[in-house]
């Protein structure tokens, strides 16, 4: 489902060159739940961003569902992100000016769904994360755990095949964190391929496979 070959990422400024990822080779099968671990600054998030097509590699090949995408332009990449990928961020990245349901509808705005279909799908996604009673609320009225559940609903509303989670429990207490991992596990059991960046060994143990990074290099 996700294949990376010899991926390298270099950040350049006028005077410094930093190698963030070095020769990464990765193959995530359909339906796998993979976690990425490593110390801070080792390139976990950079790797996730490259897998999620949020950032481009400096070198290497990326295949998503059999398509080589590293040379795709914005016009080609946007629908791929929209249909294939769903993101969950550590800091939720909800739009505070929109209600919960409007936030969840965002991925559907860039599809051909009409307003009624969008509403139905968003309600369904919120029900899955147990927040059907908070649809009209605004993010500021929610707890951290509830915000992350809204973010999960937003990630799954378009029924993407791949879910990418960047430290989804990083800003939550352990009870809330467990709740979020339970939801992710249930999504995985229903067929979603999940790649999750985490610092937490206990969370990583609940995934199928662990990838360890150290200074931009894959060590496990």
């Amino acid at each position: 489902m996700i294949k990376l070959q010899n991926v390298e990422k270099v950040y350049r400024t006028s005077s410094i060159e930093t190698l963030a990822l070095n020769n990464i080779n990765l193959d995530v099968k359909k339906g796998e739940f993979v976690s990425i671990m490593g110390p801070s600054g080792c390139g976990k998030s950079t790797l996730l961003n490259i897998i999620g097509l949020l950032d481009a590699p400096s070198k290497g090949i990326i295949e998503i569902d059999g398509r080589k995408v590293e040379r795709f332009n914005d016009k080609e990449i946007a629908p791929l992100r929209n249909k294939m990928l769903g993101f969950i961020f550590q800091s939720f990245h909800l739009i505070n000016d929109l209600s919960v349901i409007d936030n969840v509808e965002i991925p559907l705005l860039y599809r051909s769904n009409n307003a009624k279909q969008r509403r139905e799908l968003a309600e369904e996604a919120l029900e899955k994360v147990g927040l059907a009673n908070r649809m009209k609320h605004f993010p500021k009225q929610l707890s951290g755990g509830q915000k992350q559940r809204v973010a999960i609903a937003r990630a799954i509303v378009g029924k993407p095949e791949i879910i990418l989670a960047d430290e989804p429990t990083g800003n939550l207490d352990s009870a809330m964190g467990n709740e979020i991992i339970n939801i992710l596990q249930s999504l995985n059991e229903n067929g979603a391929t999940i790649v999750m960046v985490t610092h937490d060994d206990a969370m990583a143990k609940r995934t199928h496979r662990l990838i360890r990074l150290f200074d931009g290099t894959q060590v496990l």
Partner: protein
Amino acid sequence: MLSNYIKIAWKVLLRHPFYTFITLFGISLTLTVLMVLTSFLDHLFGAHYPENNRDRSLYIATMMLTDSAETSMSTGPASFRFLSRYAKSLKTPENVTIISNFSFSNTYINGKKIKLNTKYTDAAFWHVMGFEFLEGKPYNEQHTKSGEHVVVITDDLRNQYFEKKGQTVIGQNIEIEGIDYKVIGIVKGSPATRLYTYSDVYFPYTAPKSNYENKGMQGSYIAIALAKDQTDIPAIQSEFDSGIKSIPMSEIRGERKFNILIIKAEEYFDHFLNTFARRDQDKLMLYSMTALVILMFIGLPAINLVNVNVSRILERASEIGVRKAFGAPSKALLWQFIIENIFITCIGGVLALGLSYLIIYLINSSGWIPYADLTINFAVFLISVGVCLMFGFLSGVLPAFRMSRLKIVDALKG
């Protein structure tokens, strides 16, 4: 999708009331000035009371006599005699009227002087123009032929001159310059900005002091030809031009040594424009200057708004990152910000509409322009909507373009 954009735009407006106030103040002030200006231009050049037929009228108002080298020239209105011969005789128009340029006179009531604007016209004037008669009727061919001392006056003069309010004054006399004239009609006055219809008193052209019998080509009269239909205008112009071409040189030379006569039947705006810029290069300069002023008028506030918008949009980097991460193409984001900006501009436009109505009401009721009838009609409204959209587009497109190009990873970092 549109409702999502508008919801966001509304929330963004509410988020920073001071910025919002500055933005809306700038937009509404600019648009108010433009709307009032457009309304004033429409008042000046549009077809309004009593010149309701202006869109199918041709004005023969300025005659220019010059020599081949254009070293000397004489410009002014034509004589009644000239216009009778070359304008009144036109076959294509539905009607042609000859009227004097404005002149002044005085009348007295109980020792109090009333200054009067006066005008001499033929009977056709009342057919070509759309005056509303509040009492009585206009003078006709019979009145003009027999040189009867009759007048049509405005309601304003009636109220000033005749003391008995609420009673008809038709048949009563008004003394002007020592001569008694019988009032046969009262009309609702014309605004002072419509020079060819504005007057307090209308005399038949055969009345004393009209100078209608003056010889020579130049004088103090103008003619207005009313076409049956707008499509007849070129034919009337062509007929008039060929009449002018047939004038023998001896007649043009007259007592002065001019050999070129320029006089045209023009639509009102062209006639007005020719007063300032007769040559093509002068017109080009005038159009360019006007376009520049309008561009500056819209452009400068738009540039200011661009700055405000850039700082406002920067706050929303995270939102841009999220939308892009979930599949928004750059083009969709570009349109989102443009639509939001047009929405905000339209709010400013609604405020401007209210302000413009207030200002126009104040102008109309102030008496600054007698009988002023400025309005925000459909054309003015459409132009204003167009200006709103252009303003919104101009001030939104640059920040939107910048933001839509933002890298997702950078945007998500905020």
